[in-house]
């Protein structure tokens, strides 16, 4: 994410910004945090899916014979079947592309993907951390202003 650039200069200016803009900035920050957190959630689901795939591949390759399986026809109805070519699987690599891979290769593929996704999660987390710090800063400025305003009103009474 490139959005982190320019933040230091923003935080210097922040106490001089009018309320309107601080509020807008606050919303922007909160939105960004939301978006990134959603991203992290999705990544974690993807990670789990890859893990399931790896486990499934391992369980297929464990047995040498043609294993009998139940093929789901609907969510509650199955038909018995046999895997005719247990050596190859088709792997979805994204944007509609599928690769025919040998099982060990497929496992390697998923493991590679897991590493990539884990890196992404780390990246997002560090941006979220920065954003949260900024949000705190914004909130404290807003609080100070509310406090100052209240003090002012007390004096007037």
């Amino acid at each position, binding site marked *: 994410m490139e*959005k982190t650039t320019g933040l230091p200069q923003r935080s210097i200016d922040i106490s001089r910004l009018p309320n*309107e*803009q601080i509020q*807008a900035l606050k919303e*922007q920050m909160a*939105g960004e945090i939301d*978006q990134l957190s959603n991203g992290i959630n999705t990544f974690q689901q993807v990670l789990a899916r890859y893990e399931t795939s790896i486990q499934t591949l391992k369980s297929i390759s464990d047995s040498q014979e043609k294993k009998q399986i139940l093929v789901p026809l609907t969510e509650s109805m199955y038909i018995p079947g046999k895997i005719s070519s247990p050596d190859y699987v*088709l792997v979805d*690599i*994204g*944007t*509609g*592309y*599928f*690769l*025919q*891979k040998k099982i060990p290769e497929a496992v390697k*593929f998923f493991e590679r*993907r897991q590493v*990539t996704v884990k890196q*992404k999660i780390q990246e997002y987390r560090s941006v979220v951390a920065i954003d949260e710090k900024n949000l705190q800063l914004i909130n404290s400025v807003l609080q100070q202003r509310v406090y100052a305003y209240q003090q002012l009103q007390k004096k007037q009474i």
Partner: protein
Amino acid sequence: MEQSLEEFRDLQKKINKYAQNQFEFETKINETKLVQDELKLLDDDSKIFKLIGPVLVEQSLEESQTNISKRLEFLTKEMDNLTNLIKETEQKMQDIQKKIYDSKKK
């Protein structure tokens, strides 16, 4: 003054939308890059299928690679467009900010 503020808010909304789009494009670009990297690792005799509608169609490595680079090129162009749009909008926002600031001084 009121009008400028209204305008400013509109621009802010626009920027948020652009950023959202940028985010989506970035996801797509990442996905495409992953596919590209994966294709690089392949031997010539690997079988590649492309999902077209509900059908898996076999595609040559060469063809897949051209398609993917084209897609990446297109996505990067769109991304650049968005970056420029954001810059323009930010400039407009700064102008309005200055206008408001100046009118307050008077």
